[in-house]
Structure formats: structure tokens, C-alpha cells
């Protein structure tokens, strides 16, 4: 169901028969889907048109604005979220594609008690961001990058974090943060 791009981002392929299923049998209108999405461990029901992206569902319907829209074209990485643990561009993913999947956004990364993920803490300590707009996507990518085993060297981190643009130019500090978090998570 998924394929990997060279920078590690996952693109969700359509179901084998090419048709995304309407999650509800009780369809309110021919152009609206009733979806149940599992986001950060919680279930969300929403009625949306089939063309609504996961990104716009999060930002405009569910008030989960931590996931950012930078380009809406799959070019910048600001909208990176995890679907079943893999990094995915929410702007190139329809909300209807991820029903039944486990979605994690930046809001769901820290523990319930507020304890930061090691990557989040490292970003703060290393000053790995300035304006903060690309940051949720960077952090989601970094968590996956480490989990994928692609944080073995600075060179590898640079390559596997290259799908997330940062115009403030925090790259050297992002590399330092990923390096630090990877080391902490290994130990």
C-alpha cells in the first residue's frame, strides 16, 4: 500500500481496486464521506468531501493546526505526519485514504504528561528552528528518520532530512538535534 521516496517520505497508494471506500453506509449526500480517523490515539468522526486532503482535514476541520501547510504540493515537507509509523506528506494524502490507519501528528508526539519526545527536546536545546513553521514537519521526519535507521552519520541525516525545507536555515542545528536524539534513543 505504500512506496518510499528517496528521502524516506511515504506516498500512500490507492487500494488495489482503485476505489477509496466510503467509511459509512449512511451517506448524508452523494458528495460527502463519513470518515472515522484515528489521530494521536483518539477517534475523530468527520463528514468531508472526497477531495479533502488529510492536511486540510487536520487544519480546517479538526483544529489540529500543528501540521503546517507550506506549499500544498508535496515539495516542502512542512505537513509531514506519521501514518502507521511511516512519514507521509499530509498535503498529498486524501483524508479518505487513511481511514483505519493510525495517524500521529506533532500534537501527539509528547507523552500524555507533557514529557517531550527526545527529538523535540533536542530541537529546543540545539536551537534547531527559528520561525518554527517547518518545525513540526522536521520533527516528525526526524523521529521517522531515526526509527528507519537513517541517522547513522551527519551525512546520512542530511540526506534523509533533505525532504524538509527550512528557509530560516536551521539545517546545521537540525543535524545536531537529530544526532543528539538518535544517540539518546540508542542508549
Amino acid at each position, binding site marked *: 500500500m505504500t512506496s518510499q521516496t528517496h528521502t524516506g517520505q511515504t506516498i500512500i497508494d490507492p487500494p488495489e481496486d482503485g476505489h477509496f471506500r466510503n467509511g459509512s453506509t449512511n451517506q448524508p449526500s452523494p458528495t460527502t464521506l463519513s470518515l472515522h480517523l484515528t489521530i494521536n490515539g483518539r477517534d475523530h468522526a468527520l463528514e468531508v468531501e472526497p477531495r479533502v486532503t488529510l492536511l486540510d482535514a487536520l487544519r480546517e476541520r479538526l483544529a489540529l493546526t500543528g501540521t503546517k501547510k507550506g506549499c500544498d504540493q508535496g515539495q516542502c515537507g512542512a505537513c509531514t505526519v506519521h501514518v502507521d509509523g511511516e512519514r507521509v506528506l499530509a498535503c498529498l494524502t486524501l483524508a479518505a485514504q487513511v481511514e483505519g490507519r493510525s495517524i500521529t501528528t506533532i500534537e501527539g508526539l509528547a507523552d500524555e504528561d507533557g514529557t517531550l519526545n527526545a527529538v523535540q527536546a533536542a530541537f529546543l536545546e540545539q536551537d534547531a528552528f527559528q520561525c518554527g513553521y517547518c518545525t513540526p514537519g522536521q520533527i516528525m521526519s526526524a523521529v521517522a528518520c531515526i526509527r528507519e535507521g537513517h541517522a547513522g552519520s551527519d551525512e546520512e541525516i542530511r540526506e534523509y532530512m533533505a525532504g524538509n525545507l*527550512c528557509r530560516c536555515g536551521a539545517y546545521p542545528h537540525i543535524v545536531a538535534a537529530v544526532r543528539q536524539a538518535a544517540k539518546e534513543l540508542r542508549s
Partner: protein
Amino acid sequence: MTVHDMKHAASDSARLEAVGGRLSRVDGPAKITGAAKYAFEQQLEGLAHAVLVGATIAAGKVTAIDTRAAETAPGVLAVLTPGSIMELKGASDWFGRPPAEETYCPLVREVTFSGQHVAAVVAETFEQAVAAAALVKVWYDETPAIVDLSDGSDGIPIDAMTKEWGDAQAAFAAAPVRVCAAYNTPREFQAAMEPHGLIARWEGDALTIWEPSQWLDGMARTYAEWFGVPFENVRLVSPYIGGGFGSKALALAHSAVAAAAAKMLGRPVKLVLNRPQNFTSYGGRAATRQTVAIGADREGRIQSIVHRGVNETAVDGMWVEPLGSVTSIMYATPNFSSKQNVVRVNTVVPGAKRAPGENPSAFGIECAIDELAYELGIDPLEMRLINYAEQDPEAKKAWSTRQLREAFAAGAEAFGWAKRSPAPRSMRDGHQLIGWGVAAGTYPVRRAYGEAMVKLLADGSAEVESSSIDMGQGTYTILAQTAAETLGVPVKQVSVKLGDSRLARAGVTGGSRLAGVMTGAVYKAAGQALDELIGLALSDPRSPFHGLQANTLVVKDGRIASPRGDGPEISIPELMGTLGREKIEAKGDTVPASFTPQQRYNNYTTIATAIPHTEGDYSRHSWCAHFVEVRVDEDFGTVRVSRVVSALDSGRLYNPKLAESQWKGGIIMGIGQALLEEGIVDRRHGRIVNGNLADYMLPTNADIPDIQTISVGIPDPHSSALGGKGVGELGIVGVAPAIANAVFHATGKRVRDLPITLEKLI
């Protein structure tokens, strides 16, 4: 408006918390958890969504617009055209000069650039608005467009840019050693990760705008004038800004469309530019051309500099990118001439991008002096020291501080410049040609008057309020540090509120001025609050300090005591309780007492009251020196920057951790400028063909090596209250010429047109 209480971020170490300490970003926890709500992420009831329709021609007339299909599309609330959008009044410009036209229509019938807004669709959902916008049909009467700087005439002379002393032409002609070359920079874009956009909501005659903004009060002024409502009726809210780089200081045509749509529909309207629209709805850096001629004696001493520049501007708007700004001050020369023209082309009016003027100016002069060094066989670093300007050659005034010699020394030492082999193509690593280049940069200290509110509360906490903003420079953090140090309270007890035009007013965040202006204002306001607290403590009969033979008291770590330590010591909450005070507040400002209310208004809503950097006895600038290593593939001509060491003089740093991040960000944007970034214009239709983040190439993580920055600044009392000079713009200035000079050293090819792409090398 956003409050950052600092309990998550602050360290207990006083060293970290003080002004100059490496405190982590206090807005950081909100940004790394997704809790930070940026301006147009506010969730409002009844929000409608607007999408713009842009012109597909660069010049001509709109002859007809067919809106019928769009109007009947699902969810559509309105289709706005030049004929149906409400009429607005003309607004004054950022100098406060009155508008040329009495009325203003943000949707156009006369098209002067591709992508210009001709219509807008408002619908219940974003998806419905996007779909319906595609159904709007527009017919044009197209006329020929000027698409490129080279297509126009010689342009319009900008006499205010002329700078001359001595007899530059004659001295150049008589000089025994001469270099003369042309240097070009393309149209470049700010490309902040957060697109431009806004939410507009009317409640009667009161307008609230949630919009990323580098200048709340200036933009509020524009909205107020467009809609003919009092300035106080407009509230701008911009708690975080997802990058600006000069692009987010003005209310623009799309802003007007959204506010008008909200007014017409009686509903809040959200309008966010899609990424391609971010390349046409506001101006990036203008394309520039310069010729730099330098005449020198055989020892390398410059005798004359003759400089001519031209930048593109719009058909219906003026932008001057001051190309002689670095040329005239970097090196000592007895003879100098600089003149500049602008050429009108069919583009959106160009705008400010990080270090407007200084950036392309440095590309010209810092490449040219490198060429002169090779002409004479003198080391490029030595060449710069031979011509070191001991005072401002243009203003003929002493530098306030100029640690450029120190920057050259510290950078050269850390980089290992002494090991450089001077001849081009003389250093290699297998298939890669290695080049080492150097260039200097500078940016003036732009100063302004500011104000801030500081409140000391009964629980011992403090609040700082300002309508200034934080777009990543660290305003939240350094103002917390300034207030904490001045008041004598722990930084975790200080909250900073920014990004709301209802708070104490602030001028534009641009030209690297905000930190100096606002630390000065907070320092003053906090000092006033502290004075009032101490005055009450000494004079109020209920106070334990009453009757103490002391002129003053000291406050440290939130506790108040006599300076000699011989009296009582109590906490601020205890004292406030004893005094029966809920709070002590002070609005401090650095505005001259002679200013009238109108002048104060102009101070925050225009740039007319900015203080010249050469005011009084000194010339004030930040300085830097960049040392760059490039590796050029001998067969393919691909250039990689493999090492950067930069030494920078921004005076005193209020927070080195955050200042280093800004410097590195500037350097990285400079690497993009040197090697990647170029707005490509289609010659048939005058359209930006690479208006997206894949084709307009920004540096990625994989393009950027480790970067070492070294602070060589010393406190500069002439530049700001606390001794700092500008940080944000400085880092980019000089990076592109350092890379171009390194590429010449690697390859023996002098590329004078940015970006340095492989086809220019093979």
C-alpha cells in the same frame, strides 16, 4: 496575543538568563509541540474561504469575466471582480505620503504583471472555493510586455542614489592597474515557509485581522485608510510569523480582497495564497546589474571606484535596491562615483529581501576587489587590509565600532587561510577542484524610537507587552531576558506578550532594528517600574524599608533589600502585599519628548522617523568576513560548499545562541543565492515559470555543511541602549561573493552572474 510563561524553557542558571546569556528560545516549547497558533490558524465560527484568480497575461486589459459557472458551483457565496468588489479608498505609502489615487481596487482591469489578481471566489469550504475559482473565465486584450531588465531602456535615473567625491573617472583612467566588470543578480524570492494569508473579521466598524506581519501598526494604518475607519478600529494579531525575510511588512492587494470580502459578506473570511501565488502577489528581490571599475596603484591601494547600477522595478510601482550602499563604505578611496537607474518591467513591484541593497551591492564590490587582487598578485585577504577604511569614506565620520580587521583575523585563523595556495586550480582532492574564497559584508545600524509596557504584578511576576513581533529572531526571548535582568526577577517569572496591535506600539520589524529598539524600550520601561517599586518601598509608611537611611534598594532574584544588606530582605510579593498594590506598570519609551501625537503616530505607522545611521559624530554598521571552501567537480561543474567560517561583528549579542542561528540562516540563504536561486521568467508571457518550492530551488539540508560563526563584536554604545548592532541581515551579506571568489580560485573561471550553475563552468 500570546503569552509565554517560561517555566518550561528557562534554566535556573543566572548566567543563561542574563542579557547576553544563551537562554533557549522561550517560545520554543509551543513551536515544537504544535501548540503555537500562527495568525491564520485561528479557529472562527462561520469562516468562509476565499481563493484568488490571477491574470494569465503580463500586460493588457481584462475585456470580460464570465462568473456564471463559478457562481452556481456548490458552496459558492460570492464571486468578486473589479466590477463587483466594494470600492476602497487609496492608502498612504510606508513613508506616510498620501496616495496618488483617491480610490483603490485590489482586483484589476488593467494588468501589469502575470498573476495579478483579477477575481476572487468566496465559498463555504476551501475545496469549494478552489474548484469554483477554476471555473472563472477571463478574456484579455494582451499587449507586449517587458519581461526582463535587459528589454527596457536605460531606465530612470534615481538621483538620490548618486554618491560622488573626488574625480573618479579621471583617477580611474590614470590608475596604473584597472579592473572593470559587470555583475548580475537575478530576481530572487523570500520564500518563507509560511505562505502569506489572513483571516479578516468585521464587527460593525471594527476590523480584526489575523495575518503574519512584520509591522502590525503600519499594516493597521493601511487597513484603516482603505476602509475609512479610525486607526483604533483595526486590530492586527500576529502571534508567530512563519518567516518573513522582508516580505511581510505591508498590507497587500490580497489582504484588501479578504477584508473587503469579509465586509461584503458579513462573515469572517480566510484567504491564503497558494505557493505559486506567493511568487507573484508580492515582490522578491529585484534583478540587478552593476558595473564596478576599480583603479589602483601597483601596491594595491585603490585610487578610484566607478560604480553604475540598475535594478528592475514595476510598471506601476517604484522599488530602488540601493546598489552602491556597500560600494561606498567598504574600502578607502580618494575618488568615488556611484549612480543608479531603475528599469520598469512587467512584474509585481519588487520588495525587501534580507539585506536589500547591501546584499547585491556586496556581490559587486567584493567580487571586484578579488579580481583586483589577482590582477596584482596580492592575496585577496591582504588586498582588503591594504584598503581598510579607517573611517566612513562617504560620511567622513568615525566608525562607532568596526571590528572588521578582527573579523578577518579570527576568520582566517579558524579557517586556516594561511595554508591557501594562491594560484587558481592549484588545490584539488581527486576529481574535485578545491577553492577558498573570502569576502566581507556589512549592514547599517537602523535605529528608531520604541515603546514598551512593563508590569510588575502582586505575585512577583512581570509582564512585557509590545506590538512588535517574533518571526524567529528571538524577540520573545531577549525581551524576557532584558526585563528579568532590569527588574531583578528570575526569567521564568517574566511573560512576554507580542503580536497584537492593541499592545504598546512598535514600528516595523525590518532592517535588523527590532532588537536594538525594543531592548532599549523594555530596559527603560522596566527601569521605570523598578524605580516606582523602590520609591514606594522607601516612602510608604507601611513598608519595612520606610525610614531606612538608604537612597535606593536592590532587587535580585525577586527579593528586595538595602544595598548594604543591613536591613530587612523581603520578596516582591511580600512588599506588594504590604503596600496593598495589585501591580506597578510603566510604559516606557525612547521617543523624543518634543514629539507631537501625530509624530508619535507616524513613528509607529511609517518609516519616516527612522534615525540615520550616520547621525551625529559616528557611522554605525555591523561587519563580517566570510571564508568559504568549495569543491567543484572537474567534469560536471557542480559546485558544493564544503566549509564556511564567518566572523561577525554585531556588537554586543543579547543572546548568542539565537544570534548564531540568525547568522547561520543568513549564510545559508546566501549559499542558495550563490548556487541555486533564480526566478526564471518566460519570455513569451512574462510568467515566473518556476514559482514553486521544487523549481525555485532553496538550499536543502543536504546542501549545507557545518558552519562556524565567531562573534568578534564589542558593545557599541552609539548604536543602541544595550550595545548591540544588527544581526539578522548581516549574515547573508558577502556570502555570494565569497563563494564566487572561491569558485574562481577552484576553477580559474570568474562567474559574475548569479546563480553559479554548472553550465556557466563547463
